[in-house]
């Protein structure tokens, strides 16, 4: 069931009315929710940004879903990166200022995993965006036409949940 939902999410995102750029921007923004620990202030702010900016929301959820396991797998790396940054003598002044500033501490930036994952996400933001945009464009151009003829694809898209989504959005294949 979970797998089916994931597939539906994927199809929904890739075939939505958004341009490949909008979908890719959604994926890149959504990846932060998967890569960094969820319950932090920066995620709340970025969620608001994702809602306000004209990016594909389906892409946001797809990015979130896809990057959750990546986040779990890379936690040791994030921890190492965060430790290096937080304990770097040259950055102590910056962290001290942020730690003692209003609101900023609610981002939990002073946790090694949170900081490490957030910094990695910032570094990966543009690569994810460009890779996703290229992949979505390739998909729509070459793969989609072949996929839609598959019985499996038709079965997935014919599911109740998918139909509901289509009827709500008025979107047609």
């Amino acid at each position, binding site marked *: 069931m979970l797998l089916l939902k994931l597939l539906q999410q994927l199809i929904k995102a890739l075939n939505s009315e958004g341009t490949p750029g909008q979908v890719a921007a959604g994926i890149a923004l959504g990846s932060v929710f998967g890569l960094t620990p969820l319950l932090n202030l920066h995620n709340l702010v970025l969620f608001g940004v994702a*809602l306000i*900016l*004209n990016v594909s929301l389906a892409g946001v959820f797809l990015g979130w879903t896809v990057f959750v396991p990546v986040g779990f797998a890379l936690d040791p790396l994030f921890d190492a990166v965060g430790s290096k940054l*937080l304990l770097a003598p040259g950055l102590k002044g910056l962290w*001290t200022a942020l730690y003692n500033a209003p609101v900023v501490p*609610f981002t939990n930036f002073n946790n090694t995993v949170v900081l490490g994952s957030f910094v990695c996400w910032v570094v990966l933001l543009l690569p994810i965006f460009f890779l996703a945009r290229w992949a979505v464009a390739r998909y729509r151009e070459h793969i989609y036409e072949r996929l839609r003829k598959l019985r499996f694809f038709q079965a997935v898209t014919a599911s109740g949940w998918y139909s509901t989504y289509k009827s709500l959005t008025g979107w047609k294949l």
Partner: protein
Amino acid sequence: MKVFRWKALVPLGLFVLLVVLGWTLFIDRLIRLGIEAGGTAAVGAEVDLQSARLKLFQASLVLKGLAVTNPRAPMTNLFEVDELNLDIHLRALLEKKFVAETMAVRGLRFNTPRKTSGALPAKSKAAEPAAADRSASEDWAHRLKLPSLALQGLGGKVNVAGIGADSLRSVALARSLAARGDSMAGAWQRQIAAADPRPAIDSGKALVARLGNTDVRRLGLAGARDAANSIRTTINAIKASRDRLTAVQKSVTAQADSLKADAAALDRARQDDYAYARRQVQIPSLDPKDISAALFGPAALERMVPALSWVRTAQRVAPTGLAPQQKAGPKRRRMAGTTVAFPKTHRYPTVLVEFAEGSFALGGQTTMAGDYLARLTGLTTEPAVYGKPLTFLARRSNAVAGPHDIEVAGALDHTTDVPRDSVRADLAGVRLPAFDLAAAGARMDLRTGTVHVALSRSGDQVAGHWQVRSDSVGWSRLGGGAPPAANAPLGSQAWLDGLVWRAVSSLKDVEVDAAVSGRLESPSVDISSNVGGAVANALRQAVAGEVSRVEAQVKARVDSLVGGQVDAARAKLAALNTGPLKTITDDQGQLDGVQAQLEQKLRGLTGGLPGIHL
């Protein structure tokens, strides 16, 4: 294409509303969980809180039903509080910090029983730091060797053959010193060989011989200049050689001094070996302090171990300095990581209660019953940020029975890099506990008396006192039996029990003073008591001759085992002190001599050609 999706503002607003609603619904629960988790980590045992209620608009927080488990007795609470009312600082909350200007405490009770155990699971990470505090103090207590009051070695033939060389400290120390001496001798020889001044001495002597009584006028200007240059070069080589030798001499002297200090420890080790051997053949020291330590040592340690453990906990919970502080991150499905705090002066500390006051009552008709007033200032996790020490005071304001001065006061000053803590408790006219003196087979009931407790810490040094006085002591036999007969065999437990019983059972005034001092890691303990004095007197009268006889045998045995090894080590050290250092001094003398001769030659050369500087 539009960049913004303005129609999303409504769902965004709804989302924010949802978040605020969730925060309102769950903040009290989050505060409760946070206090429980933070308290549990600090104490190392469960901290329970029934409810927390944050009233943002009134800037207040009300905590109800706080129970802090005693980590040493998990079925008991260290203290329990019915209600805590805190006036909080809202601006500090914006920095994710908790600052309470005042805290009113209602319904404070100590040592209340728990329905369930408050012990943490053995493998709990939260329990580790507090467990480490406790085990460090317990390990110290286990390492401490308290004298015993065993007399089985008297009255019969003493088997000193059971005392083995391998169990004596001075033998091990002598062997280690001899080995160190051998290793140092080799190293010194290599250093002296590397700094060998022989080439410089030989070349200087050869130059002196070559120049002989040469007349500078016969050498001519160029010849005299060459000769002077040769002398200067050789003098420089001699000076360099002497510098090398002086460096070696300094190193050798420093190491020899350290060996001398260790050699001095041989005498102390020998005294320890005598004491050890005395214990092995079960004859006691007749020193009142040793007997006091044998009688009251366990009871004193029972009180000192938790006190020292709390000193460590205070250091951990309120560390000194402004260095970033690391602790484990929050528990979550993902990796917790490490959370680093970056304290800064003139800002809010992470947690601060500026002033707390509460009154509490101890019920019943005992001498402890009455009304109390407690006051605390500057409770914080970052004393260096707050800049003021923590102080506390609890005083009885109204007694139900008995006299009646009870006061506990203290200060924890962690504002500088050197922590300074002090705690003092004076309890007069209170019901004191009874002590089982297993070594004497007696139970001492102190009834009503005074207790003075003081503990101070400065850096890594601690000093403390536990003094108990009573003038209405009652004695009873442990196990309730009749006192042993006076004619029991000399040295038997019955004989000892009888002797001690007769010595102490008439004592009505008792005074015990246990002192602890030294490094926090391993302080020494000194216990004195008039009970120890009375027992020592009785023992001296009864067995002084016998003890001296056995002690002489024991000393002779230890000396025979230790003497050879120690003498050999001392001889080796003496040889080390004379041999290499004498070689170096001799070489330096030769260098000085040759240099003097060369300088004389140089003066001869430069003086022979007036007006000409070579």
